[in-house]
């Protein structure tokens, strides 16, 4: 499509990109912290420069641009940072927090800042300074016998993958679908998911180091034992288990994180079950659940809606040029042309050839009984949709799903809504019906994926829209709010939220919950300098 760009056209794009900041106030890359005078901000910047060096404080339009980028609607400029500061070690983090306390500078910590679909690196409210921890990028330990790793925030899954290859370690990584450019720390702190048997990342997390607002360095679990060696081996430590309160939270800055790694299995066999109708989702869910409970299927099972898959490699305009959401029949036809059904359920077996051979018939039987076609490499090798999930289920690195962000066109745009529910057929059926109703009403296509963890499922709905079109961005925002609200009325709430809906979702979790979080916040960060607004905590 744009392969044939002339030099002049590209120049024009580059120029436009470089000057977007000047176009409209809402496109500004920077906004000052609320209630802070310019000269005070200048003093802050001077002090931060003294800590990290001139090169690592970003406090003008041009250098803040990278932190401003996101794919969610932000029509009123509510998620615009004031700048960024990038420490290289724990001591610098402590020194930055001291400055922030002195001046009441709000800091928004990120590890790699690729929280895509949820606001990337942008803060919950404008004027916060991004605390960019990417420069802290060391793999501090890899215990080859225990299969445990200790990493700093800036370590990407690509880096861990390379480390394993270079050192020929018998382990796999477990990645979100956007592994190469995102961090183990950021993803795990958001309680993100992957697709091998180690897919519930927070479940596999073991020990962390946190810098509190007052500079205290806390090592959770066994990490504080003098001469201890059990930090990455035993999760729970002694007394209250604290790791949880530092996930999806603003109670501290996490500077180290331990994780368990999956031993590489001798044999791996990926499957896809093809189901023809949208209404098959209930039966699929009920077929999957027992195998997740008894672990015959050891990995998180993905039920991919055809449109989610098709949107990776296709543009909307190539499929449908008329008004309104794409009709089901059109999707069905295109799915069939790509060897897909309306739901395509992915799981894998791990072990030895013998254990896989023993398990496979049991699982096949259950899916065939509900009319699913159970397919493997024998039938689908080379199919790009099959290959994509096949890679994910063994921790493979890909960015193919980023394709869905440009569904509507060049400007991109996608915001995620991820409600959770018990893994029961009635739930998926109800959620799918409700999502289709609300999204189609606003003119958007329903592109879903369900991920069955164990007894629960995550419903991943990417609301794809055209961020270059303000009217559509406004609709996307309204559609998202309506979805969150209507799902809430049925008792379904999101497991995570974009920076634009943090309060809305927090309200659904109730007043007592918000109040307890507020009290913890007050105790740990009385000046509210760490990520105010994160998950609705001021």
């Amino acid at each position, binding site marked *: 499509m*744009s*392969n044939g*760009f002339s*030099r002049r056209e*590209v*120049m024009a*794009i*580059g120029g436009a*990109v*470089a000057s*977007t900041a000047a176009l409209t106030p809402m496109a500004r890359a920077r906004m000052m912290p609320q209630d802070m005078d310019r000269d005070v901000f200048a003093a802050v910047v001077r002090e931060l420069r003294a800590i990290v060096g001139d*090169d*690592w404080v*970003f406090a003008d339009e041009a250098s803040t*641009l*990278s*932190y401003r*980028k996101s*794919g969610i609607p932000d029509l009123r400029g509510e998620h615009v940072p004031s700048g*960024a500061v*990038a420490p*290289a*070690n724990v001591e610098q983090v402590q020194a930055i927090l001291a400055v922030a306390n002195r001046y009441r500078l709000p800091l928004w910590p990120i590890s790699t*800042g690729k929280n*895509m679909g949820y606001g*990337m*690196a942008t803060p919950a409210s404008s004027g916060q300074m991004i605390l*960019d921890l*990417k*420069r802290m*990028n*060391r*793999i*501090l*330990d*890899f215990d*080859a016998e225990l299969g445990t790793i200790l990493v700093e925030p*800036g370590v990407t899954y690509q*880096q861990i993958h*390379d*480390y394993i290859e*270079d*050192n020929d*370690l018998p382990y796999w990584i477990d990645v979100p679908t956007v592994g*190469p*450019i995102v961090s183990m720390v950021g993803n795990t702190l958001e309680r993100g998911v992957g697709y091998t048997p180690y897919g519930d990342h927070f479940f596999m997390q073991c020990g962390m180091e946190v810098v509190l607002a007052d500079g205290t360095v806390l090592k959770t679990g066994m990490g504080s034992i003098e001469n201890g060696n059990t930090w990455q081996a035993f999760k729970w430590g002694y007394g209250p288990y604290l790791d949880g309160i530092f996930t999806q939270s603003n109670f501290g800055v996490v500077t180290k994180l331990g994780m368990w790694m999956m031993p590489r299995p001798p044999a791996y066999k990926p499957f896809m079950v093809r189901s023809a109708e949208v209404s098959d989702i209930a039966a699929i869910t009920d077929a999957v659940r027992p195998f997740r409970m008894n672990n015959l299927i050891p990995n998180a099972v993905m039920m991919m809606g055809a449109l989610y898959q098709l949107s*990776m490699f296709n543009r909307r305009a190539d499929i449908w040029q008329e008004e309104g959401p794409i009709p089901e029949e059109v999707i069905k036809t295109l799915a069939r042309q790509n060897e897909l059904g309306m739901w395509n359920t992915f799981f894998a077996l791990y072990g030895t050839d013998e254990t896989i051979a023993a398990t496979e018939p049991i699982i096949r039987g259950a899916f065939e009984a509900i009319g699913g076609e159970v397919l493997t490499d024998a039938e689908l090798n080379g199919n*790009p949709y099959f290959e994509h999930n096949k890679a994910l289920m063994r921790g493979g*690195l*890909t*960015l*193919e799903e*980023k*394709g869905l*962000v*440009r569904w509507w066109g*060049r*400007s*991109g745009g996608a915001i995620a809504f991820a409600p959770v529910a018990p893994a029961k057929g009635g739930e998926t059926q109800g959620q799918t019906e409700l999502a289709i109703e609300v999204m189609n009403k606003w003119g958007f296509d329903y592109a879903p994926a369900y991920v069955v963890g164990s007894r629960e499922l995550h419903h991943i709905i990417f609301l794809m829209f055209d*961020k270059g079109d303000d009217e559509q961005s406004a609709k996307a925002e309204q559609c998202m709010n309506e979805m969150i609200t209507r799902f809430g009325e049925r008792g379904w709430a999101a497991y995570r939220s974009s920076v634009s809906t943090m309060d809305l979702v927090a309200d659904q979790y109730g007043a007592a919950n918000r109040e307890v979080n507020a009290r913890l916040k007050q105790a740990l960060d009385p000046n509210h300098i760490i990520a105010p607004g994160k998950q609705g905590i001021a």
Partner: protein
Amino acid sequence: MHARQRRWTALTLGLVLLAGGGLAGSLSNSASAQATYEIEPRAPEYLYARTCGYCHGHNIAPIIRGRNLPPAVISSIVRSGMGAMPAFKPTEITDTELEALSEWISQSEADPEEHGQ
């Protein structure tokens, strides 16, 4: 090999590799004060394969090699992001690295293995 020794070796090797992207080099003592690639920039091919190449020429984004795109334009797009492309910050790809990367992309031949969007 003794287990502890093996673990130590793995750690050292990893740091060296991270520092140079496969370049031979000795372990830097100042690793804790700076990200290693701030001291020894990673090669353009290495960065391209581990970042850009997952999307460009791989179904998701247009081919950018072999097109003589002006380096300054490439650099500015990397820093700002573009549509579905995220922005990459100086903490992810340093200014020195980006300059070399953009130059390399601009000069590089098209890769016949790559395919459009």
